[in-house]
């Protein structure tokens, strides 16, 4: 128990150090810029789960732009790897079985709920869509609940 408290105290300090308002705001502006370009130039919503789903289940004439966008994501990832490797300093990586379950939930849930953090959380909320607002509140709430459960059950050992 005492050990748990000590660990909690440590994370508290390290997380306080981890608060990155400037970088996060700047990154957010870039995310908004990329999504805005998709809207104003291509007339599309930059919803990653929807774009990915369209590639996995291709429809003629509606697939190539999706592939290009996903290719751009990967290219951006390569640039990060070269110039900002800290972006892939994951910090927490769950064990494989948990990652697999998590990925399945993300894939299934984003299809059933018609979007993810980008489509609902950024584009939809900006467009004042009631569906996206509800979806965003919901996924943040269940995400927080799961984090609470995982932290409680494992006491940070996972």
């Amino acid at each position, binding site marked *: 128990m005492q050990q748990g408290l000590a660990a909690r105290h440590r994370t508290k300090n390290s997380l306080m150090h981890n608060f990155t308002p400037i970088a996060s*705001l700047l*990154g*957010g502006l870039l995310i*908004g*810029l*990329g*999504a*805005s370009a*998709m*809207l*104003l*130039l291509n*007339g599309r*919503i930059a*919803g*990653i*789960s*929807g*774009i990915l*789903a369209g590639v996995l*289940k291709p429809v003629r004439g509606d697939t190539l732009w999706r592939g290009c*966008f996903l*290719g*751009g994501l*990967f*290219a*951006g*990832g390569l*640039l990060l790897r070269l110039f900002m490797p800290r*972006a*892939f300093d*994951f*910090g927490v990586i*769950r064990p494989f079985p948990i990652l*697999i379950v*998590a*990925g*399945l*939930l993300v*894939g*299934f849930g984003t299809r059933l*709920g*018609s979007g*993810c*953090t980008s489509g609902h959380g*950024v*584009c939809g*909320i*900006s*467009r004042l*869509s009631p569906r996206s607002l509800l*979806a965003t509140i*919901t*996924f*943040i*709430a*269940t995400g927080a*609940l*799961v984090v*609470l459960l995982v932290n409680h059950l494992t006491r940070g050992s996972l």
Partner: protein
Amino acid sequence: MKALLTSFLSGMVFAIGLGISGMTRPVKVIGFLDFFGEWDASLALVMLGAIAVYFVANRLSTKMPSPLLSPDFSLPKRSDLDTKLIIGAAIFGAGWGLGGFCPGPALTSLASGALPVFIFVVAIGIGMYVHTWATELRATNSSLTISPSNSTQDA
């Protein structure tokens, strides 16, 4: 052709934004979702920044007859709130909190070459196929109503 290039570049800028913001680091995501522990508010600022820019772009788009490089806007129009939306978002949130990645950061992080990210992305793909199969199965099993949920144009 130009539209494909802008698609690519948009994705690239988006990914760089994800990387700079901290979204590609599960430790930041989990820290943000840890409201009852030691909350890291950083990702709230990611949303704030992205929404601020996109809000203006969306306003602009409503004044344009068509996007600059495409014949027309292809945007979601639904505004009804249904249980699929809520349950789907709830399931997605659970996976997000569990793994610490949402789809954009996961795809971007593939470039790191890390095996766990690859496994996670494959699982996302399988989860999506499971949804498609389940939808098709329901459609064939019940001839009552077939919901038009095979659209990939979301949010």
